[in-house]
């Protein structure tokens, strides 16, 4: 594959161009900025489809980075603009462009200051796409921070009653965490010989990189990176920003937050912790499995106790992202494939659930499940689709959630570790599997409390789901079923990447 095709760069910067146009063009026409945003994010999505098509040669995906674009940036410091995709980042790029495209339709009712809203939405998309594709630590950090300010404004200006608190909490948590990342990157840079931020070079020379550090120092750097990504994931006990941000954010932003932003944390762990420090990661796998289990169970228990629909789904995200951590502890292809696939499926399914919360909230102006009930009588189509989404979230067979969770559990049960750790992780897996039952509990309970039971007088005037909302829901459901029935659609991309990631570790793969 030749370098500098600039297809990937076009994908990354197309939304930013749209944001700039929002800033330059002033129009009083209603829905002008809506269509502008839909056009640009739609074009981005179309380009990712082309990218996915061209990624495979003769139907077979190759390992390693492709579509690499390199431009010099700061030659004195060996900093360059370098982007590329592999089997790990491609599904994420695809997910991002899909979710943001649909988020434009989810926010179709945003009329107040729509110009700034859509500009920020698209600017954020550039940041997130940049995170998933950067192959230079400096660029990665820049993109990581680029996403913050748009998100801060989106939550803080268009959010609910406690939006200022939620917005500042979100940004301070992430900034504090990324401070650790910056230091870790600086250390990696100055310890590598010759000094470089080039991720491809670093991934190839990880052994010599590690040799330059003393063991406590390695652990410090590893932990600094891990903590940073764990906040974004979010891992218990760093998860408290997430429910606040979700509850206060407008629907479309919740969709993006759960659908895409959380994946940045998981992506960072796989790309950097696992990529640069594989032997540490393996050494820590029991810890990872336990942390994953805590996330799964604790998140699910918290979700059971909520009455706010958004909070239920927010805590369910905590629970579902725990599966990713668990999958990383397996050290075989099944587990890692499952973890990466789980990032994608959770993105689509949670986005679906949040869209339904928006559908209900727009009509009833409440998310409190004690006030709702029996809505299926007035919204038959919406409730039918919600039941499908809920089943997908539980992990019913035939839908994508089932595939990824199945892969993770089989992977971790048959983990590639030796000795006592092997059996301990098996035990952890069994305990974590109860999370599925809890998941079924809170999801079905929420379905019943919102859509079934007696209909209150207050809700007798409700209308069913409209065509704009239906559009997003149907597209997402298509992906859920497609991957549920034919997981190879994505696994063909993911598998070579996870084989390569595991090949660095003795005993892995």
């Amino acid at each position, binding site marked *: 594959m030749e370098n500098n095709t600039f297809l990937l760069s076009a994908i990354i910067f197309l939304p930013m161009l749209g944001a700039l146009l929002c800033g330059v063009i002033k129009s009083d026409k209603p829905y002008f900025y809506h269509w502008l945003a839909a056009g640009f994010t739609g074009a981005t999505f179309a380009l990712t489809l082309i990218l996915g098509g061209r990624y495979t040669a003769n139907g077979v995906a190759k390992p390693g980075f492709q579509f690499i674009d390199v431009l010099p940036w700061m030659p004195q410091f060996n900093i360059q603009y370098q982007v590329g995709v592999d089997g790990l980042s491609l599904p994420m790029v695809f997910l991002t462009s899909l979710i943001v495209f649909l988020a434009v339709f989810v926010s179709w009712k945003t009329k107040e200051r729509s110009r700034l809203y859509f500009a920020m939405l698209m600017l954020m998309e550039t940041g997130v796409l940049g995170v998933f594709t950067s192959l230079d630590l400096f660029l990665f950090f820049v993109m990581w*921070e*680029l996403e913050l300010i748009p998100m801060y404004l989106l939550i803080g200006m268009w959010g609910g009653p406690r939006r200022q608190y939620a917005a500042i909490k979100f940004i301070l948590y992430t900034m504090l965490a990324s401070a650790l990342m910056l230091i870790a990157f600086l250390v990696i840079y100055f310890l590598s010989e010759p000094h470089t931020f080039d991720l491809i070079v670093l991934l190839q020379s990880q052994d010599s990189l590690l040799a330059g550090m003393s063991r406590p120092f390695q652990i410090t750097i590893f932990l600094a990176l891990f903590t940073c990504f764990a906040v974004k994931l979010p891992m218990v006990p760093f998860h408290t920003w997430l429910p606040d941000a979700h509850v206060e954010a407008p629907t479309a932003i919740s969709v993006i937050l759960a659908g895409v932003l959380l994946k940045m944390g998981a992506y960072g762990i796989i790309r950097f912790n696992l990529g640069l420090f594989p032997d540490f990661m393996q050494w820590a796998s029991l810890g990872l499995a336990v942390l994953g289990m805590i996330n799964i169970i604790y998140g699910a228990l918290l979700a059971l106790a909520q009455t706010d629909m958004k909070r239920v789904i927010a805590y369910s995200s905590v629970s579902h992202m725990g599966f990713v951590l668990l999958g990383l502890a397996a050290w075989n292809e099944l587990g890692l494939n499952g973890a990466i696939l789980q990032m994608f499926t959770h993105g689509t399914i949670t986005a679906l659930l949040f869209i339904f919360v928006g559908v209900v909230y727009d009509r009833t102006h409440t998310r409190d499940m004690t006030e709702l009930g029996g809505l299926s009588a007035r919204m038959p189509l919406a409730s039918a689709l919600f039941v499908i989404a809920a089943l997908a979230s539980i992990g019913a067979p035939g839908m994508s959630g089932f595939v990824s969770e199945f892969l993770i559990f089989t992977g971790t049960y048959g983990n590639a570790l030796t000795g006592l750790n092997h059996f301990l992780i098996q035990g952890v897996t069994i305990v974590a599997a109860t999370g599925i039952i809890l998941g079924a509990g809170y999801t079905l309970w929420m379905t019943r409390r919102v859509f079934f039971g007696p209909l209150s007088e207050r809700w007798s005037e409700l209308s069913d789901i409209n065509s704009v909302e239906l559009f997003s829901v149907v597209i997402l459901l298509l992906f859920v079923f497609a991957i549920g029935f034919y997981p190879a659609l994505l696994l063909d991309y993911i598998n070579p990447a996870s084989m390569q990631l595991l090949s660095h570790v003795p005993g892995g793969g």
Partner: protein
Amino acid sequence: MDFIALAPEIGLALSALFLIVLDLFLPEQNKTARLSFVAGLGLTLSLGLLLGLHFGGYQATADFDGAFVSDVASVFFRAVLLSSALLTLMISIDYVREKIRYAGEFYALLMLATLGAMFMVSAAEALTLYLALELLSISSFVMVALRKDQPRSAEASIKYLIFGAVSSGILLYGFSLLYGITASLNFSDINTFLLQYSDDYLLSGLKGAFAIQNGHLRIELLAAILMVVGGLCYKIAAVPFHMWAPDVYEGAPLPVTAFLSSSSKIAGFVALMRVLDGLNSTNTTSIWVNFLIVLAVLSMTYGNIVAIAQHNVKRLFAYSSIAHAGYLLMGVVALSTSRSRETAMIGLCYYLLVYMLTTLGAFAVIMRFADRARSSRLQDWAGLGRQHPWFGFVLACCLLSLTGLPPFAGFTGKFYLFGAVTQMGSGYLWLVLVGVLNSVLSLYYYSRLLRTLFFADAELPEPTQAAHPTLVLASLISVLGIIGLFIFPGWVTDFVAQIHTLI
């Protein structure tokens, strides 16, 4: 003597004198506008001479025994200072007409202060440095007092004067001690002396807090170093020499506040860098390095924490500027080792330029908003960012750049500085951590300002008068600068990479 090297300064001095004379003969009508035009012309002429000479291939042959070194660093910083003065002039035209007592004197003093600053960044010799510092300081004292409507202006000026007098006395005492020890005022001679003389001469048998590797520094040399560094730290407002800053920033006319936080600070830093290059030797370096590390940590932390509690935008910027002195001092610390020196030098030059652009961009907006709200209290500014999208955007960019967030040049600058300290060795990683955590801390109060501007609707009526075109132009230059330098840092770093020594 090669006086062509001084052509920009001579041009600027003559324009300033011409301006004072012109002030006497101009009719009252439209006087301020004409005066500002002449002042702008003088500054542009000087900048043109400077850049024309340098890029025309002129190489200074004389360095006036170190009194005026026209090296790459000097050219770079003189250009920065002249641009800073020009931008200050551009953002202040409306303000000067309405609130400054003597417009002619104000412009003349602005030029003279810039002249002092230009000499200060070119001086590699103690006496010239001191005289230049006094020219800058005395002009500033007067400028601070020039406000019509605020009695606090005079109070601030007196405060500034007293602090300034004490600290320049300390600086002078330090220089005289240094002269007594080394028999020289020239920084490179002082350096040669410190490097050549044997340990017996420089060290004494005394046991004390400032123990260094080979023994203990003689007490007079120790005192000289601390006094010189302390005296200069007053100019850059580093804790604990910062006491004057909040009151002076608040009381001074806005353009003067802008000038103090950009030009005056830049001149102070370059002077400090030059002096410390002279004091860089095996026996002396660790003294000022440790001293400056303490100052850096104190300045960052104190500045950022106290800034959180501020409700006045000018005071908030005073504390933010104290914090930035701390970040910059980290870079100065990193100048001390050969490993990190190159990165630190690039980082300091880049950061100072970016800091100038950012501060003046922010002050352009503050000028406009303070005029709209008739107040510089934060609570009176609610919703102004929504009412003025362009200025809101500019201020947001500047604040985020000051925080150190991409895609703005402030991020790259901080990255260079932190990178330089990391390069010093893993023993200094804690300092980087302090710096990075402080950046997060600063986000809190910068974002509170953003919140005030954007998260509420404006209560003020729509503006009747548009902002002065030069003010808008200055804000545009600032934004283009901080975004442009982020994307193309090579414009600056390639140029300043030629700087190897400052003495």
